[in-house]
């Protein structure tokens, strides 16, 4: 009896969404080829049957690691208890089947273990196309399921079928030949015109040499600008709530050690980080909408040529964009890049993009130094534009890094075997994307929260003790912090920033909460961190810029280093990568301060 089903098929045929629906999982789905780079496994609820989702592949000739993984699983899994669900896009039924049968033969997959799943039938219904389902089933002589993973149509029947013990006549290699011959005589409504009609209508503008580039620049600028502009009201609301909670705690506990502990040690420190979750939500939401729409594949084509100059390719675009949310999904997305060298360069330079952990630091500095001025009826704001320029700075650093690597350590001026299948445009499922983005925020708090909490607690104790201190400068924290002064002075920074920089190596976001804990310990009046920093006059324009440069380059993320160690070949020492990044960050921050002070 079958105990395990592998999901096979071309990239972007909807395997992962089908996997999510059948196993009630929530793995990443997107409307472009190569969204799945690892195998996903889960049991079908209520059964002992395991479903395994594999990255998609077109051919027996594979180039990228994810395709190699899928191919090795498909060709070596000949156990009696293993079956295959071959997923084919219903609108591309005939070409999909021809490709599937060719691969089944080439990889010596036992046809008797294969069931065909024709996915996305909702698109057929939308275009009023009827498929001759009985005829297709009689030609293939194998179970055929016509489903829509998106609308969940016929999924219950598919699930029941997988759990049942129905048997079908055994087929031989000769039968496979006759199936291929019969298939060529299958007459279908010309579905291609429907599949392509919508795409070509939009692509006439979105891929045109002039308007395509204008739209690309507009959409990327709007993405990074909106992170700042749209999140402001939500951030104000969180700030207001936190201040209300602090006042409530002060009202209950009065003044003294414990009130100080809860307000300065816990609420202030944790709140300083939580306040930036609206920005993370908006960034994730927009990137996921772009992924689902099918536009990202077009963006890949538009920037391919320019990225080639920097030693990358269009295939690096999606990993680079994803890394603006977090470097880890970006590095995983880079696994689908076919050229090894391009993949290594992309992975090594990804940490230079502005990930969400850098947002709190940048946002704080922008709030401090850039007064809010609005243009075009509030559509654009000075703070949003400053944010956009920081994103551009991150992108520039990434491109400079990849340019240098491709011309020195990893020479990459070879072939350019770029082939990409363009997906159809689809409306994003806004509600589900909002739900996923919300979960990303919760996960973000869960991941960084404990680290920030304990780091802040430790800092708060160091700031409060010895209890005999009459001034903050006598605290253990101030005494220890002063050891960092020789390192901080060349950057125009004070020891407080040094302590915050040190803790930011646990997680970048800890920088803001550390400063918050230090400055609120120094000051009796409750106020927001930006006001505390402005009042302290410890940061000048030049030292603020130096701080930005340091943060833009330094690789203060343990998780990124761990995933780089896993995904890069052994010749790339992760310790060395960390040191090179740190050295570059410190040197360039020093140069920045010297130039602007």
């Amino acid at each position, binding site marked *: 009896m079958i105990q395990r089903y592998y999901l096979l098929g071309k990239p972007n045929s909807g395997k992962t969404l089908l996997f999510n629906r059948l196993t009630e999982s929530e793995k990443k789905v997107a409307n472009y080829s190569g969204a799945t780079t690892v195998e996903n496994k889960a049991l079908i609820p209520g059964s002992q049957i395991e479903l395994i989702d594999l990255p998609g592949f077109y051919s027996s000739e594979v180039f990228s690691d994810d395709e190699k993984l899928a191919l090795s699983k498909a060709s070596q899994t000949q156990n009696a208890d293993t079956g295959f669900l071959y997923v084919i896009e219903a609108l591309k039924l005939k*070409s999909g089947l021809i490709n599937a049968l060719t691969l089944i033969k080439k990889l010596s997959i036992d046809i008797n273990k294969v069931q065909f799943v024709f996915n996305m039938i909702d698109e057929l219904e939308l275009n009023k196309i009827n498929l001759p389902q009985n005829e297709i089933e009689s030609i293939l002589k194998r179970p055929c399921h016509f489903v829509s993973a998106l609308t969940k149509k016929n999924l219950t029947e598919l699930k029941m079928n997988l759990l049942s013990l129905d048997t079908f006549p055994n087929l031989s290699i000769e039968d496979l030949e006759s199936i291929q011959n019969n298939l060529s005589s299958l007459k279908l409504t010309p579905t291609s015109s429907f599949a*392509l009609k919508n795409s070509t209508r939009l*692509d*006439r503008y979105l891929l045109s040499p002039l308007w395509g580039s204008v739209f690309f620049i507009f959409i990327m600028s709007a993405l990074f600008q909106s992170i700042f502009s749209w999140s402001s009201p939500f951030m104000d609301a969180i700030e207001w709530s936190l201040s209300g909670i602090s006042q409530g705690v002060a009202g209950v506990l009065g003044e003294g050690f414990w009130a100080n502990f809860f307000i300065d040690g816990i609420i202030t420190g944790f709140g300083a980080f939580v306040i930036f979750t609206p920005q993370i939500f908006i960034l994730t939401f927009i990137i996921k909408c772009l992924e689902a729409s099918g536009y990202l594949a077009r963006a890949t084509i538009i920037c391919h040529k320019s990225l080639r100059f920097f030693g990358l390719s269009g295939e690096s675009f999606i990993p680079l964009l994803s890394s603006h949310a977090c470097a880890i999904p970006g590095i995983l997305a880079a696994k689908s890049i076919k050229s090894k060298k391009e993949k290594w360069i992309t992975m090594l330079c990804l940490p230079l993009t502005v990930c969400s952990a850098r947002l709190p630091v940048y946002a704080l500095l922008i709030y401090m130094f850039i007064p809010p001025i609005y243009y075009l009826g509030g559509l654009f704001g000075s703070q949003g534009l400053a944010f956009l320029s920081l994103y551009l700075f991150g992108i520039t650093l990434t491109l400079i890094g990849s340019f240098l690597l491709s011309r020195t350590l990893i020479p990459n001026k070879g072939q350019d075997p770029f082939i990409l*299948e363009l997906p159809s445009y689809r409306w994003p499922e806004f509600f589900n994307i909002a739900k996923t983005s919300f979960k990303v925020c919760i996960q973000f708090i869960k991941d960084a929260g404990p680290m920030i909490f304990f780091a802040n607690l430790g800092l708060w104790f160091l700031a409060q003790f010895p209890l005999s201190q009459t001034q903050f400068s006598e605290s253990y924290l101030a005494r220890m912090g002063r050891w960092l002064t020789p390192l901080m002075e060349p950057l125009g920074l004070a020891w407080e920033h040094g302590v915050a920089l040190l803790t930011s190596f646990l997680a970048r976001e800890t920088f803001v909460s550390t400063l918050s804990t230090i400055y609120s310990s120094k000051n009796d009046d409750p106020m927001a961190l930006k006001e505390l920093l402005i009042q302290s006059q410890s940061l000048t324009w030049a030292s603020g810029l130096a701080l930005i440069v340091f943060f833009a380059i330094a690789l203060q993320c343990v998780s990124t280093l761990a995933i780089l160690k896993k995904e890069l070949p052994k010749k790339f020492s992760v310790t060395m990568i960390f040191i090179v990044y740190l050295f570059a960050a410190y040197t360039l921050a020093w140069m920045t301060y010297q130039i602007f002070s």
Partner: protein
Amino acid sequence: MTLWDLNPNQHAKVSKLGLDKAISQRLSDMGFSQLTDVTCLFVTAFGGPRVYQVGESLLSLSREMAQNIEVS
């Protein structure tokens, strides 16, 4: 004449894949086999990859790839 020479909306038939064996096999599995009808749909900026219709699919190929596919 190569695939790269096609102008937008111009049709042709693939006559020869002059790329190395692995890439030719992959292209063939993606639908680019001999005698297949192909239409050039879009030309992008700065000599970037072009978009072709092959059967039910839209495929984008870089200059290096398209210049090695002969069409008639």
